[in-house]
């Protein structure tokens, strides 16, 4: 009898501990998001989106330059990263399906997804910034694209693999060449999944700071010139938060709120899209 009691006690305490662990995870999520929400909404003003920064130490001004810069860098990163990723994933799932080459690239991409982003920043600095002697928005976009490619490539590969092989055979039977089968049949079947991959990869790079520190650098002025340094929200947040002025901190919180909201919306919609499409 005593031994059974002992086992029951162990059982309940171990299970309660794991429940506590889940509570701890939820606690951190609510704590962090709530903190960003409270600080961010309090600091949110219309000028933030409409005005450029004022000289350091003065109050007022906004972060229009950083919002525009962030959008530009993310847009061009997507423009470079998504086609390369989708096409690469297509090769792995279609032309090279089942080969060692496809497996190697696939494993390397999985590793690339988690490689420190600051190393990618240093890599792009050596390739695109040092030889040209100036920071540029393009370098930032390329750095983000490098991070994006493996993410998009892997999702595309997975999503194309989910399309049943018999569907392709049906198209082959009608005499369609492989590229037509891929473009008109396979892509159509996997479109939602690929779109999800794109959304999630955008969410991933939109919050990246480290690779932008020494590629697109920062710019206190409004600039749409991708050949020069371009301000980004994330680098501005870093600079403002580490700075000494209270007004800077307020703006950093507001910017953090906006960027968190943007990224969470992308992530959640991507997830929901996936769930809705592959429900059954």
């Amino acid at each position, binding site marked *: 009898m005593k031994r059974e009691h002992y086992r029951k006690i162990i059982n309940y305490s171990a299970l309660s501990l794991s429940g506590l662990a889940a509570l701890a995870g939820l606690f951190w999520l609510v704590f962090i998001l709530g903190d960003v929400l409270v600080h961010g909404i309090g600091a949110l003003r219309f000028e933030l989106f409409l005005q450029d920064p004022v000289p350091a130490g003065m109050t007022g001004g906004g972060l229009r330059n950083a919002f525009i810069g962030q959008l530009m860098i993310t847009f061009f990163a997507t423009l470079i990263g998504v086609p390369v990723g989708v096409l690469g994933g297509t090769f792995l799932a279609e032309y090279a399906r089942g080969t060692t080459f496809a497996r190697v690239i696939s494993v390397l991409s999985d590793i690339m997804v988690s490689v420190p982003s600051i190393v990618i920043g240093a890599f792009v600095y050596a390739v695109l910034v040092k030889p040209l002697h100036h920071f540029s928005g393009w370098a930032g976009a390329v750095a983000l694209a490098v991070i994006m490619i493996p993410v998009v490539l892997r999702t595309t590969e997975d999503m194309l693999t989910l399309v049943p092989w018999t569907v392709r055979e049906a198209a082959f039977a009608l005499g369609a060449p492989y590229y037509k089968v891929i473009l008109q049949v396979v892509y159509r079947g996997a479109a939602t999944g690929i779109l999800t991959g794109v959304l999630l990869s955008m969410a991933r790079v939109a919050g990246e700071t480290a690779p932008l520190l020494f590629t697109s650098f920062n710019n206190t002025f409004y600039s749409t010139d991708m050949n020069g340094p371009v301000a980004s929200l994330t680098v501005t*947040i870093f600079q403002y938060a580490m700075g000494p002025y209270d007004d800077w901190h307020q703006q950093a919180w507001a910017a953090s709120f906006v960027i968190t909201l943007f990224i969470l919306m992308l992530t959640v919609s991507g997830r929901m899209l996936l769930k809705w499409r592959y429900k059954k």
Partner: protein
Amino acid sequence: MPIFSKKNSIDIAFSTITAVAALTVLVVICGIVAVLFKESWPAIQKFGFFRFLFTVEWNPVTSVFGAASAVYGTIVTTGIALLIAFPTAVGIAIFVTEIAPNALKGPIGAAIELLAAIPSIIYGMWGLFTLAPIMSQYIEPFLQKYLGNLPLFKTLLAGTPMGIDLLTASVILSIMIIPFTASIARDAFNLTPGVVKESAYAMGATQWEVVKDVVIPHAKLGVFGGAALSLGRALGETMAVAFVLGNNHKIATSLFDAASTITVTLANEFAEADSDMYLSSLYYLALVLFGLSFITLAVAKLFLLRAEGKHSR
């Protein structure tokens, strides 16, 4: 593949384009290794490998650079982070797969995964403005008061708690890596065949005994893979740590001391490096970091592939 039998010129063009796109991943990885080697070559020649790794001094003025303090900071912060995150993540995975009622499984799992979606700069902001003051005012004095007199903890918890230190950075890192370990562990637990669990229940095992003796041994490889993956992630994390670690090049014996990691050094000093040797040494650091994280991630992938292979058989 039956398709290659009938060649079509557009098809050849399309397959070539996709092949080139797939090759970019390989090209980028080789490019990173080549560029890091090339840029750090002057520093490699000047400081060697082991001397660079074990020199503590990091002095741009005299142009003497050693990686010891940065590597030390990286290893300590990730080590403590993993120590905190691993049990929590496994606990979450157990809760989500075995204990939670079905209606809660999905939402709780999704909420935990949302932690991974929060950008690292937000963790940094939150750490600097919210967590660091809490650590310095409540948690660190508390730890000092109750554990500070034990032999080992005397050195570990020495000094005035400022909040900008190794411990705060580790706590933030641990929160960041929980979702990675938790979601992989959850997937691994879910692969345990129901029949095996049921037979253990039929023998009269309690729920915990089933988890401990059936589910966890079954999912071992996946769980270790998940842990190694989070370790690789934590090694390279930059912004969350940059906010709360200071950038202090020394071997700090106390967890309440400001320190530095490879990533923090790079983030703070890269754009300011004014001499060639300085920049070269920073690239050398980046190379060390790349090597460390690449190996860790490769090991993680190996574990996960093995776990997968075990189940597809």
